[in-house]
């Protein structure tokens, strides 16, 4: 990041500065080491985590090596389930769809929110709190409710087509969720609508924490709006962007509710996502091992993406 023109290196935003060692209120034993009894305090939370998160995970991992219909005996099949997953072109298409959904769930809302937040630094908006509250509403709505509402919006005789017809764009209107070209983007836009509020509120809160002197000095140095955004706003929001990325990318990859209610993976297999395959494998085909294998792969994919985001963030911190 080029900052020499500002004459002052921007301070690290408060939420990113690490508390000094001496301020950390850790009780230490005479030897300077944490007392073993301290671990006891972790026990309740850890046992909860172990029972409800670790145990099912281990169980699912184990099941992914078996063929099992849920009733009769489990049969060890080694890596067969994984081979099935990776050789099934439909599963690969579903994994690819989930990557495309990341654009709609994560990239698009973050870009739009950043642009608006950048504007807000310059322009005073009346009733900002009210706007923020309204924009946050989609985030707190149950996704099934959102899906039912949007299915209606996209319906052939729904409000979207009605509006398009009204302004003379009747050649654009179509059965959006049944269209082989537009079903996935239509679904994705709902994801954008849902995650945008959360992302925007995160960024808006982050911007408020930036000391106004920084903007003043940037302006004194003659920075225009674009320059100011890249030099002051964006670096200060790195922490928020990381959080937003982790939340939205996770939502994109494990997307189930919207697809299940709106398209069930259709038309054809155009909006298939990995979690739909887990549902089908377990509840329709009753191949629980196969469902577990897809689940394990999806979990690893999520883990990899989130680690990549964190790694990128850490690298950015060090170079800043």
């Amino acid at each position, binding site marked *: 990041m080029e900052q020499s023109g500002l004459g002052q290196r921007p301070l690290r935003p408060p939420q990113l500065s690490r508390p000094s060692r001496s301020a950390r209120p850790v009780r230490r034993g005479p030897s300077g080491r944490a007392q073993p009894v301290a671990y006891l305090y972790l026990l309740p939370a850890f046992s909860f985590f172990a029972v409800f998160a670790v145990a099912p995970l281990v169980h699912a991992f184990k099941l992914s090596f078996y063929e099992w219909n849920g*009733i*009769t005996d489990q049969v060890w099949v080694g890596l067969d389930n994984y081979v099935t997953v990776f050789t099934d072109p439909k599963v690969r298409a579903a994994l690819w769809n989930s990557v495309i959904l990341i654009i709609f769930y994560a990239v698009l809302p973050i870009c739009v929110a950043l642009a608006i937040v950048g504007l807000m630094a310059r322009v005073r908006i009346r009733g900002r709190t009210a706007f923020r509250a309204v924009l946050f509403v989609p985030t707190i709505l149950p996704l099934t409710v959102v899906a039912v509402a949007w299915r209606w919006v996209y319906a052939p005789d729904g409000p979207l087509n009605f509006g398009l017809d009204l302004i003379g764009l009747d050649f654009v209107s179509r*059965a959006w969720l*049944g269209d*082989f070209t537009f079903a996935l983007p239509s679904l994705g836009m709902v994801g954008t609508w849902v995650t945008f509020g959360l992302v925007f509120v995160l960024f808006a809160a982050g911007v408020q924490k930036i000391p106004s002197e920084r903007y003043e000095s940037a302006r004194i140095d003659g920075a225009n709006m674009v320059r100011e955004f890249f030099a002051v706003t964006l670096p200060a929001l790195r922490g928020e962007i990381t959080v937003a990325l982790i939340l939205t990318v996770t939502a994109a990859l494990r997307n189930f509710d919207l697809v299940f209610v709106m*398209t069930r993976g259709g038309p*054809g*297999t155009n909006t298939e996502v990995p979690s739909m395959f887990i549902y089908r494998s377990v509840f329709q*085909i*009753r191949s629980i091992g196969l469902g577990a294998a897809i689940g394990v792969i999806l979990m690893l994919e999520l883990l990899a993406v989130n680690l990549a985001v964190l790694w990128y963030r850490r690298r950015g911190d060090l170079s800043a």
Partner: protein
Amino acid sequence: MRILSHSRTLGILGVILAFMLVSAACSGDSGDDDAMAGPVVLDVLAEAGDEATLELATAQFTEMYPHVSFNITLRAFDDYMQIAPGILSSDDPPDIAHGNQGYTIDGLLVQGGLILPLDDYAAQYGWVEAFGDGTLDQYRFTEDGTDFGNGILWGINGVAEFVGVYYNKEKLAALGGLPSTFEEFDALLAAAKAAGEVPIQLGNAEGWPALHVYGMVEAAYRPAAEIRDWVFGEPGATVVTDTERQAAAKFEEWRDNGYFPEGVNGIAYDDSVANFIAGEGVFMIAGNWNTATLDEGMGANAGYFAMPVGPSGIVGGTAALALPWHITTSAEDPDLAAEFINLLVSEEFADELASVGRVAARSSDTEIEGLLAEVTAGAAAVIADEGVTLYADWATPTMFDTLTSKTQELLGGQIDGEQFLSDVQADWDAANG
């Protein structure tokens, strides 16, 4: 597959009936044949569409056997199919439960040894004679639960869930009379299109509704027995034949001629029914469980006929009996459970199914009227002509997914009829090869 959109109507009906029956039961005197027997509770786990049927049947049964009471648990279709195998294999299974034809539910229950064979009861109560031998094959599995359509009888239901042709009487009258052959039906579609109407109302957002339409075309080109054989995976059977190709080509022709509504893959099934009621569409090829909804919405303007599938006027098509009733292996009194199931499938009860909006598969001479009478007559005609072709998605565990996505691709113009058939054949071969 069988999704009842009018469950609310049924629910209200059920409540009214329950009230009537409770008041009737209170005033009536109870038989005392079994007064010596201790109280018995029959646990029933059922799909929610049968709520009203069960209320009617249980009230009659407790009148006959006052010491018996019922504990009924209901779940909506999707939910039911997810949880039923788990509940049946749990420590506390019910005495009587619904299954579902095909490998993924019934096959599983047989494999797990969770349900009892019913052959002895079938002989005792004369079920096979009453329904016809072939009709009950859909409830048969070999003892190991791997060969569908053969072997032991594991379940039964007396309700017909048949696909047929609903039509708008005013609109059809303007085009011609009722078709008595498939060619005549095809000609009416062309006439409807020429008149600016939507020939066939259809909403295929779910993927399976188009399957019911395709099943009719298939039945018009192929003998019903041949179609049943490939669904059951009989030796020597196969999906793709020359006649099957002709059917796929005809379906493709209907698509290309614009016989279905625009954006058909984006219209939900329930919405298509609403569109038909609102006057969009001359015909709607759909399951007979829509009867109450259409009767309510269209009144005397709604008609129904069984699809004439051959030049000879024989009727047939996608059809089956409803979800099987099973007796679980842990049922405390299997004989009593069988007695109750026999009431559900009995000829006397068949006459009362109309009062809960259900179509009886057993010939019934009850004085029903209106649309339901046409629907009941249609089912009887299909059974008489041995035209039942079952539901194609039973063929393999993955067939439902294959068919739902492939019908959408076929209707959306992504694939042609040939590709559709080879994809279906590939799924079938993987399971039957």
